[in-house]
Protein backbone atom coordinates (compact mmCIF):
# COMPACT_ATOMS: atom_id res chain seq x y z
CA UNK A 1 0.00 0.00 0.00
CA UNK A 2 1.33 3.39 -0.87
CA UNK A 3 2.09 5.79 1.97
CA UNK A 4 0.98 9.35 1.36
CA UNK A 5 1.10 12.36 3.60
CA UNK A 6 -1.86 14.39 4.79
CA UNK A 7 0.10 17.60 4.13
CA UNK A 8 2.69 18.20 1.44
CA UNK A 9 6.09 17.24 2.81
CA UNK A 10 9.36 17.87 1.08
CA UNK A 11 13.10 18.03 1.42
CA UNK A 12 14.13 21.40 2.82
CA UNK A 13 17.86 20.76 2.87
CA UNK A 14 20.31 17.92 2.41
CA UNK A 15 24.01 17.41 2.91
CA UNK A 16 26.52 14.71 2.10
CA UNK A 17 29.88 13.70 3.45
CA UNK A 18 32.44 11.18 2.26
CA UNK A 19 35.79 10.62 4.01
CA UNK A 20 38.74 11.32 1.73
CA UNK A 21 40.71 8.07 1.88
CA UNK A 22 40.22 5.64 -1.00
CA UNK A 23 41.18 2.00 -1.27
CA UNK A 24 41.29 0.68 -4.81
CA UNK A 25 39.81 -2.73 -5.55
CA UNK A 26 43.10 -3.52 -7.28
CA UNK A 27 44.87 -3.00 -3.94
CA UNK A 28 42.64 -5.61 -2.30
CA UNK A 29 43.42 -7.91 -5.23
CA UNK A 30 47.15 -7.29 -4.76
CA UNK A 31 46.94 -8.50 -1.18
CA UNK A 32 44.49 -11.38 -1.53
CA UNK A 33 45.13 -12.50 -5.09
CA UNK A 34 41.64 -11.84 -6.42
CA UNK A 35 40.93 -10.35 -9.83
CA UNK A 36 37.38 -9.03 -9.62
CA UNK A 37 36.55 -5.35 -9.43
CA UNK A 38 32.99 -4.96 -8.17
CA UNK A 39 33.80 -1.23 -7.92
CA UNK A 40 36.87 0.91 -8.73
CA UNK A 41 37.56 2.19 -5.23
CA UNK A 42 35.91 2.74 -1.89
CA UNK A 43 36.04 5.47 0.72
CA UNK A 44 37.69 4.80 4.06
CA UNK A 45 37.49 6.82 7.26
CA UNK A 46 40.44 8.61 8.80
CA UNK A 47 41.56 7.33 12.21
CA UNK A 48 39.38 9.92 13.95
CA UNK A 49 36.18 9.39 11.95
CA UNK A 50 33.27 7.10 12.63
CA UNK A 51 29.56 6.92 11.80
CA UNK A 52 28.88 9.74 14.27
CA UNK A 53 31.41 12.17 12.79
CA UNK A 54 30.10 11.40 9.30
CA UNK A 55 26.51 11.94 10.46
CA UNK A 56 27.46 15.24 12.07
CA UNK A 57 29.27 16.46 8.95
CA UNK A 58 26.28 15.77 6.71
CA UNK A 59 23.88 17.17 9.28
CA UNK A 60 25.84 20.44 9.40
CA UNK A 61 25.80 20.69 5.62
CA UNK A 62 22.07 19.95 5.52
CA UNK A 63 21.37 22.77 7.99
CA UNK A 64 23.50 25.12 5.89
CA UNK A 65 21.74 24.10 2.71
CA UNK A 66 18.30 24.34 4.28
CA UNK A 67 19.12 27.73 5.83
CA UNK A 68 16.94 26.86 8.80
CA UNK A 69 17.33 27.44 12.53
CA UNK A 70 18.56 24.22 14.15
CA UNK A 71 16.22 24.83 17.09
CA UNK A 72 13.30 24.28 14.68
CA UNK A 73 14.40 20.69 14.09
CA UNK A 74 12.14 18.51 16.20
CA UNK A 75 13.63 15.11 15.44
CA UNK A 76 17.03 13.69 14.51
CA UNK A 77 17.16 10.06 13.44
CA UNK A 78 20.39 8.37 12.46
CA UNK A 79 20.28 5.20 10.42
CA UNK A 80 23.47 3.19 10.72
CA UNK A 81 24.75 -0.33 11.21
CA UNK A 82 28.15 0.88 12.46
CA UNK A 83 27.20 2.58 15.69
CA UNK A 84 30.33 3.46 17.68
CA UNK A 85 28.33 2.62 20.81
CA UNK A 86 26.21 -0.50 21.01
CA UNK A 87 24.14 1.41 23.56
CA UNK A 88 24.06 5.22 23.44
CA UNK A 89 22.42 7.05 20.58
CA UNK A 90 24.30 8.69 17.75
CA UNK A 91 21.29 10.97 17.36
CA UNK A 92 21.96 12.86 20.58
CA UNK A 93 25.51 13.67 19.50
CA UNK A 94 24.30 14.90 16.13
CA UNK A 95 21.50 16.95 17.70
CA UNK A 96 23.93 18.54 20.17
CA UNK A 97 26.51 19.29 17.52
CA UNK A 98 24.07 21.13 15.26
CA UNK A 99 22.42 22.96 18.16
CA UNK A 100 19.04 21.26 17.96
CA UNK A 101 18.98 20.22 21.63
CA UNK A 102 17.16 19.96 23.98
CA UNK A 103 13.60 20.07 22.53
CA UNK A 104 14.20 17.36 19.99
CA UNK A 105 13.51 13.68 19.50
CA UNK A 106 16.60 11.64 18.76
CA UNK A 107 17.18 7.98 18.08
CA UNK A 108 19.10 5.56 15.90
CA UNK A 109 17.70 3.15 13.35
CA UNK A 110 19.16 -0.14 12.26
CA UNK A 111 17.96 -2.06 9.21
CA UNK A 112 21.25 -2.93 7.50
CA UNK A 113 21.56 -0.69 4.45
CA UNK A 114 18.08 0.81 4.56
CA UNK A 115 18.14 2.37 8.04
CA UNK A 116 18.50 5.80 6.41
CA UNK A 117 15.27 5.53 4.45
CA UNK A 118 13.48 4.15 7.53
CA UNK A 119 14.45 7.44 9.13
CA UNK A 120 13.03 9.24 6.06
CA UNK A 121 9.63 7.71 6.59
CA UNK A 122 9.53 8.50 10.30
CA UNK A 123 10.54 12.10 9.65
CA UNK A 124 8.03 12.47 6.85
CA UNK A 125 5.25 11.20 9.11
CA UNK A 126 6.22 13.53 11.96
CA UNK A 127 6.36 16.53 9.70
CA UNK A 128 3.19 15.69 7.81
CA UNK A 129 1.21 15.28 11.04
CA UNK A 130 2.43 18.65 12.28
CA UNK A 131 4.10 17.16 15.35
CA UNK A 132 7.38 18.84 14.39
CA UNK A 133 8.27 21.64 12.00
CA UNK A 134 11.43 20.01 10.67
CA UNK A 135 12.84 16.51 11.06
CA UNK A 136 16.26 15.27 10.07
CA UNK A 137 17.00 11.80 8.71
CA UNK A 138 20.56 10.62 8.31
CA UNK A 139 22.08 7.52 6.81
CA UNK A 140 25.75 7.14 7.72
CA UNK A 141 28.00 4.14 7.93
CA UNK A 142 31.57 2.98 8.27
CA UNK A 143 30.82 -0.46 6.98
CA UNK A 144 32.84 -3.51 7.91
CA UNK A 145 34.20 -6.08 5.49
CA UNK A 146 36.04 -9.17 6.67
CA UNK A 147 39.55 -9.35 5.23
CA UNK A 148 39.53 -11.29 1.92
CA UNK A 149 35.73 -11.35 1.85
CA UNK A 150 33.85 -10.01 -1.18
CA UNK A 151 32.59 -7.20 1.02
CA UNK A 152 36.11 -5.96 1.66
CA UNK A 153 36.11 -4.48 -1.84
CA UNK A 154 32.94 -2.49 -1.32
CA UNK A 155 32.18 -1.86 2.38
CA UNK A 156 32.69 1.88 2.50
CA UNK A 157 32.23 4.97 4.62
CA UNK A 158 30.01 7.98 4.04
CA UNK A 159 26.53 9.35 4.48
CA UNK A 160 23.94 11.97 3.80
CA UNK A 161 21.42 13.91 5.85
CA UNK A 162 18.00 15.24 4.84
CA UNK A 163 15.79 17.77 6.53
CA UNK A 164 12.08 17.39 5.86
CA UNK A 165 9.62 20.23 6.12
CA UNK A 166 6.01 20.94 5.23
CA UNK A 167 4.59 23.37 2.72
CA UNK A 168 4.37 26.37 2.81
CA UNK A 169 7.99 26.11 4.03
CA UNK A 170 10.22 26.21 1.01
CA UNK A 171 10.96 22.69 -0.16
CA UNK A 172 13.38 21.66 -2.90
CA UNK A 173 11.70 18.32 -3.64
CA UNK A 174 8.26 17.18 -2.53
CA UNK A 175 7.29 13.65 -1.64
CA UNK A 176 4.73 12.13 -3.93
CA UNK A 177 4.48 8.85 -2.09
CA UNK A 178 6.44 6.05 -0.43
CA UNK A 179 6.13 2.28 -0.51
CA UNK A 180 7.81 -0.36 1.65
CA UNK A 181 8.34 -4.03 0.89
CA UNK A 182 9.65 -6.12 3.79
CA UNK A 183 10.08 -9.88 4.37
CA UNK A 184 12.16 -12.03 6.69
CA UNK A 185 15.03 -12.88 4.36
CA UNK A 186 18.38 -13.46 6.13
CA UNK A 187 20.81 -12.68 3.34
CA UNK A 188 23.30 -10.70 5.42
CA UNK A 189 23.70 -10.18 9.16
CA UNK A 190 26.09 -9.38 11.96
CA UNK A 191 25.59 -10.96 15.35
CA UNK A 192 26.10 -8.92 18.51
CA UNK A 193 29.77 -8.43 19.51
CA UNK A 194 31.00 -9.68 16.12
CA UNK A 195 33.39 -7.39 14.27
CA UNK A 196 32.40 -8.49 10.78
CA UNK A 197 29.11 -9.42 9.14
CA UNK A 198 28.37 -12.66 7.32
CA UNK A 199 26.31 -13.05 4.19
CA UNK A 200 24.71 -15.65 1.98
CA UNK A 201 26.88 -14.90 -1.05
CA UNK A 202 24.71 -15.37 -4.17
CA UNK A 203 21.66 -15.63 -1.92
CA UNK A 204 22.00 -11.86 -1.43
CA UNK A 205 21.07 -11.37 -5.10
CA UNK A 206 17.92 -12.82 -6.61
CA UNK A 207 15.77 -13.60 -3.52
CA UNK A 208 17.08 -10.68 -1.54
CA UNK A 209 18.23 -7.48 -3.28
CA UNK A 210 16.42 -7.88 -6.59
CA UNK A 211 13.18 -9.27 -5.22
CA UNK A 212 12.75 -6.46 -2.69
CA UNK A 213 14.06 -3.55 -4.76
CA UNK A 214 12.02 -4.46 -7.80
CA UNK A 215 8.88 -5.20 -5.79
CA UNK A 216 9.05 -1.88 -3.93
CA UNK A 217 9.78 0.12 -7.08
CA UNK A 218 7.04 -1.52 -9.05
CA UNK A 219 4.60 -1.29 -6.14
CA UNK A 220 5.14 2.43 -5.79
CA UNK A 221 4.93 3.15 -9.51
CA UNK A 222 1.77 1.11 -9.84
CA UNK A 223 0.07 2.90 -6.95
CA UNK A 224 1.11 6.26 -8.38
CA UNK A 225 -0.01 5.22 -11.82
CA UNK A 226 3.43 5.94 -13.21
CA UNK A 227 5.96 4.07 -15.27
CA UNK A 228 9.73 4.43 -15.68
CA UNK A 229 9.28 6.95 -18.48
CA UNK A 230 7.60 9.35 -16.01
CA UNK A 231 10.77 9.62 -13.94
CA UNK A 232 13.73 11.78 -14.93
CA UNK A 233 16.02 9.99 -12.50
CA UNK A 234 16.12 6.82 -10.45
CA UNK A 235 18.35 5.79 -7.58
CA UNK A 236 18.68 2.23 -6.36
CA UNK A 237 20.67 1.00 -3.40
CA UNK A 238 24.26 0.43 -4.54
CA UNK A 239 26.06 -2.54 -2.97
CA UNK A 240 28.25 -2.74 -6.09
CA UNK A 241 28.15 -1.34 -9.62
CA UNK A 242 26.29 -4.27 -11.16
CA UNK A 243 23.23 -4.64 -8.93
CA UNK A 244 21.65 -1.18 -9.31
CA UNK A 245 22.24 -1.20 -13.07
CA UNK A 246 20.64 -4.62 -13.38
CA UNK A 247 17.70 -3.63 -11.20
CA UNK A 248 17.19 -0.44 -13.22
CA UNK A 249 17.19 -2.32 -16.51
CA UNK A 250 14.84 -4.97 -15.20
CA UNK A 251 12.34 -2.32 -14.15
CA UNK A 252 12.80 -0.38 -17.37
CA UNK A 253 15.16 2.50 -16.62
CA UNK A 254 18.01 3.47 -18.91
CA UNK A 255 21.51 4.45 -17.85
CA UNK A 256 20.67 8.16 -18.28
CA UNK A 257 18.18 7.95 -15.42
CA UNK A 258 20.50 6.27 -12.93
CA UNK A 259 23.89 7.65 -13.91
CA UNK A 260 23.85 10.92 -11.90
CA UNK A 261 23.11 9.00 -8.72
CA UNK A 262 25.40 6.06 -9.34
CA UNK A 263 28.18 6.94 -6.91
CA UNK A 264 29.22 3.41 -5.98
CA UNK A 265 32.08 2.91 -8.47
CA UNK A 266 34.15 5.62 -6.79
CA UNK A 267 32.76 5.61 -3.27
CA UNK A 268 31.76 2.03 -2.56
CA UNK A 269 28.77 0.82 -0.63
CA UNK A 270 28.13 3.27 2.17
CA UNK A 271 25.34 1.04 3.49
CA UNK A 272 22.72 3.22 5.21
CA UNK A 273 24.29 6.14 3.39
CA UNK A 274 24.15 4.55 -0.06
CA UNK A 275 20.67 5.41 -1.36
CA UNK A 276 20.82 8.77 0.41
CA UNK A 277 24.13 9.67 -1.22
CA UNK A 278 22.80 8.56 -4.61
CA UNK A 279 19.72 10.73 -4.11
CA UNK A 280 21.88 13.68 -3.05
CA UNK A 281 24.05 13.35 -6.16
CA UNK A 282 20.87 13.22 -8.24
CA UNK A 283 19.34 16.28 -6.58
CA UNK A 284 22.67 18.06 -7.24
CA UNK A 285 21.91 17.94 -10.99
CA UNK A 286 18.09 17.96 -10.93
CA UNK A 287 15.86 20.74 -12.25
CA UNK A 288 12.42 21.93 -11.16
CA UNK A 289 9.74 19.51 -12.31
CA UNK A 290 12.00 16.45 -12.40
CA UNK A 291 10.52 13.33 -10.83
CA UNK A 292 12.97 11.11 -8.94
CA UNK A 293 12.52 7.52 -7.83
CA UNK A 294 14.68 6.39 -4.90
CA UNK A 295 14.68 2.79 -3.72
CA UNK A 296 16.75 1.54 -0.82
CA UNK A 297 17.53 -2.01 0.16
CA UNK A 298 18.35 -3.36 3.57
CA UNK A 299 19.34 -6.93 4.16
CA UNK A 300 17.16 -8.97 6.37
CA UNK A 301 15.31 -7.72 4.21
CA UNK A 302 13.35 -4.86 2.78
CA UNK A 303 13.14 -1.93 0.41
CA UNK A 304 11.66 1.55 0.77
CA UNK A 305 10.69 3.35 -2.42
CA UNK A 306 10.07 7.10 -2.70
CA UNK A 307 8.93 9.40 -5.45
CA UNK A 308 10.04 13.04 -5.19
CA UNK A 309 9.10 15.92 -7.44
CA UNK A 310 11.74 18.62 -7.65
CA UNK A 311 10.54 22.15 -6.82
CA UNK A 312 11.50 25.60 -8.09
CA UNK A 313 13.28 26.22 -4.82
CA UNK A 314 16.15 24.00 -6.00
CA UNK A 315 17.06 26.67 -8.54
CA UNK A 316 16.32 29.65 -6.28
CA UNK A 317 18.40 28.44 -3.42
CA UNK A 318 22.09 29.26 -3.91
CA UNK A 319 23.82 26.43 -2.12
CA UNK A 320 26.35 26.88 0.67
CA UNK A 321 27.41 23.25 0.90
CA UNK A 322 29.62 21.26 -1.49
CA UNK A 323 27.88 18.92 -3.96
CA UNK A 324 28.51 15.17 -3.76
CA UNK A 325 30.91 15.38 -6.71
CA UNK A 326 33.30 17.48 -4.64
CA UNK A 327 33.49 14.74 -2.04
CA UNK A 328 33.93 12.08 -4.71
CA UNK A 329 36.85 13.98 -6.21
CA UNK A 330 38.40 14.89 -2.86
CA UNK A 331 40.52 11.82 -2.33
CA UNK A 332 43.80 10.38 -1.20
CA UNK A 333 44.74 6.82 -2.10
CA UNK A 334 45.84 4.53 0.68
CA UNK A 335 47.47 1.14 0.51
CA UNK A 336 46.26 -1.95 2.28
CA UNK A 337 48.53 -1.47 5.28
CA UNK A 338 47.31 2.06 5.94
CA UNK A 339 43.77 0.80 5.35
CA UNK A 340 44.33 -1.84 8.00
CA UNK A 341 45.60 0.81 10.42
CA UNK A 342 42.70 3.16 9.76
CA UNK A 343 40.07 0.45 10.06
CA UNK A 344 41.41 -0.65 13.43
CA UNK A 345 42.75 -3.99 12.32
CA UNK A 346 46.02 -3.41 14.23
CA UNK A 347 44.95 -1.23 17.15
CA UNK A 348 41.31 -0.75 17.96
Amino acid at each position, binding site marked *: MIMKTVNTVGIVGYGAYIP*MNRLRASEVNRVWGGSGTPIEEKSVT*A*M*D*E*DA*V*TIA*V*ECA*RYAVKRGKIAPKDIGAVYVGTESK*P*YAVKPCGT*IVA*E*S*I*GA*TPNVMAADYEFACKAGTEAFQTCIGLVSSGMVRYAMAIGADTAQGRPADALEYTAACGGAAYIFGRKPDRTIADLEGSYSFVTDTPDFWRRGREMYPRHGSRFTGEPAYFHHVISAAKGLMEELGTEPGDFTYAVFHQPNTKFPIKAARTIGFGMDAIKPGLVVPFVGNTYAGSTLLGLAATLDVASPGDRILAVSYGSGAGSDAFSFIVQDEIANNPRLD*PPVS*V*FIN*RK*RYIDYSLYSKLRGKF*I*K
Partner: protein
Amino acid sequence: MSVPRYWRETRYRYRLIGEMCTECGAIFFPRRAVCLKCGSVELEEYKLKEIGTVATWTTIRNPPEGYEKYAPYIVALVELDDGVMVLTQVVDIEPEEMKTGMRVEAAFRKVKEDGSSGIIEYGFKFRPIIE
Protein backbone atom coordinates in the same frame (compact mmCIF):
# COMPACT_ATOMS: atom_id res chain seq x y z
CA MET B 1 38.73 9.61 31.83
CA SER B 2 36.17 11.81 33.54
CA VAL B 3 32.77 11.67 31.88
CA PRO B 4 31.33 14.80 33.58
CA ARG B 5 34.42 16.74 32.57
CA TYR B 6 33.87 15.80 28.94
CA TRP B 7 30.13 16.36 29.14
CA ARG B 8 30.47 19.89 30.57
CA GLU B 9 32.40 21.03 27.51
CA THR B 10 30.59 19.16 24.74
CA ARG B 11 28.48 21.98 23.36
CA TYR B 12 31.43 24.40 23.33
CA ARG B 13 33.71 21.87 21.69
CA TYR B 14 31.11 20.49 19.29
CA ARG B 15 30.03 23.90 18.09
CA LEU B 16 33.05 26.13 18.69
CA ILE B 17 31.41 28.40 21.20
CA GLY B 18 33.48 31.00 23.01
CA GLU B 19 32.53 34.18 24.79
CA MET B 20 32.14 37.83 23.95
CA CYS B 21 32.51 40.68 26.44
CA THR B 22 29.25 42.61 26.53
CA GLU B 23 31.15 45.76 27.55
CA CYS B 24 33.95 45.97 25.00
CA GLY B 25 33.16 43.26 22.45
CA ALA B 26 36.38 41.30 22.93
CA ILE B 27 36.02 37.63 21.97
CA PHE B 28 37.59 34.74 23.83
CA PHE B 29 38.08 31.04 23.39
CA PRO B 30 37.87 29.14 25.61
CA ARG B 31 35.37 30.89 27.85
CA ARG B 32 36.73 32.95 30.71
CA ALA B 33 35.44 34.62 33.88
CA VAL B 34 36.89 38.08 33.30
CA CYS B 35 37.42 40.06 30.09
CA LEU B 36 41.14 40.36 29.39
CA LYS B 37 40.69 43.67 27.60
CA CYS B 38 38.44 45.68 29.93
CA GLY B 39 38.08 43.60 33.09
CA SER B 40 34.33 43.23 32.77
CA VAL B 41 32.74 40.09 34.18
CA GLU B 42 29.76 40.40 31.85
CA LEU B 43 30.49 37.94 29.07
CA GLU B 44 28.05 36.03 26.93
CA GLU B 45 28.30 33.01 24.66
CA TYR B 46 29.59 33.72 21.21
CA LYS B 47 29.55 31.34 18.27
CA LEU B 48 32.97 31.50 16.65
CA LYS B 49 33.56 31.62 12.92
CA GLU B 50 34.36 28.16 11.62
CA ILE B 51 36.88 29.30 9.08
CA GLY B 52 40.38 30.66 9.53
CA THR B 53 44.04 30.78 8.58
CA VAL B 54 46.95 28.68 9.84
CA ALA B 55 49.36 30.88 11.80
CA THR B 56 51.84 28.15 12.72
CA TRP B 57 51.76 24.38 12.99
CA THR B 58 53.66 21.25 13.99
CA THR B 59 53.47 17.50 13.52
CA ILE B 60 53.16 15.43 16.67
CA ARG B 61 55.14 12.24 16.23
CA ASN B 62 55.43 11.13 19.85
CA PRO B 63 51.94 11.64 21.24
CA PRO B 64 50.87 11.68 24.84
CA GLU B 65 48.93 8.85 26.42
CA GLY B 66 45.57 8.36 24.76
CA TYR B 67 46.56 9.81 21.40
CA GLU B 68 48.98 7.10 20.25
CA LYS B 69 46.88 5.58 17.50
CA TYR B 70 46.32 8.90 15.75
CA ALA B 71 50.03 9.65 15.22
CA PRO B 72 51.37 11.33 13.29
CA TYR B 73 48.97 14.27 13.51
CA ILE B 74 49.16 17.99 12.91
CA VAL B 75 48.47 20.64 15.54
CA ALA B 76 48.16 24.27 14.51
CA LEU B 77 47.38 27.68 15.82
CA VAL B 78 44.55 28.91 13.60
CA GLU B 79 43.41 32.51 13.46
CA LEU B 80 39.65 32.45 12.89
CA ASP B 81 38.08 35.07 10.68
CA ASP B 82 36.69 36.83 13.74
CA GLY B 83 40.24 37.30 15.01
CA VAL B 84 40.26 34.63 17.69
CA MET B 85 43.13 32.14 17.77
CA VAL B 86 42.38 28.49 18.45
CA LEU B 87 44.73 25.62 19.03
CA THR B 88 43.49 22.68 16.99
CA GLN B 89 44.42 19.58 15.09
CA VAL B 90 44.41 19.91 11.33
CA VAL B 91 43.18 16.79 9.55
CA ASP B 92 42.76 15.48 6.00
CA ILE B 93 46.18 16.78 5.01
CA GLU B 94 49.71 15.38 5.06
CA PRO B 95 52.48 17.25 6.91
CA GLU B 96 54.26 17.80 3.56
CA GLU B 97 51.24 19.72 2.27
CA MET B 98 50.89 22.03 5.28
CA LYS B 99 51.63 25.71 4.80
CA THR B 100 51.49 28.69 7.09
CA GLY B 101 48.72 30.95 5.81
CA MET B 102 46.56 28.19 4.39
CA ARG B 103 42.81 28.45 4.85
CA VAL B 104 41.06 25.86 6.99
CA GLU B 105 37.54 25.14 8.25
CA ALA B 106 36.09 23.40 11.28
CA ALA B 107 35.41 19.66 11.10
CA PHE B 108 33.78 17.32 13.60
CA ARG B 109 36.04 14.48 14.68
CA LYS B 110 36.82 11.95 17.31
CA VAL B 111 39.40 13.30 19.76
CA LYS B 112 40.10 10.29 21.94
CA GLU B 113 38.57 7.17 23.36
CA ASP B 114 38.69 5.67 26.81
CA GLY B 115 39.78 2.25 25.60
CA SER B 116 37.31 -0.01 23.79
CA SER B 117 34.70 0.09 26.55
CA GLY B 118 34.84 3.71 27.71
CA ILE B 119 33.44 6.93 26.40
CA ILE B 120 34.32 8.35 22.98
CA GLU B 121 35.17 12.05 23.05
CA TYR B 122 34.28 14.16 20.03
CA GLY B 123 35.18 17.73 19.20
CA PHE B 124 36.26 20.18 16.56
CA LYS B 125 39.37 19.91 14.45
CA PHE B 126 40.17 21.87 11.30
CA ARG B 127 40.78 20.75 7.72
CA PRO B 128 41.52 22.34 4.35
CA ILE B 129 38.35 23.98 3.06
CA ILE B 130 36.07 21.70 1.06
CA GLU B 131 34.50 23.70 -1.78
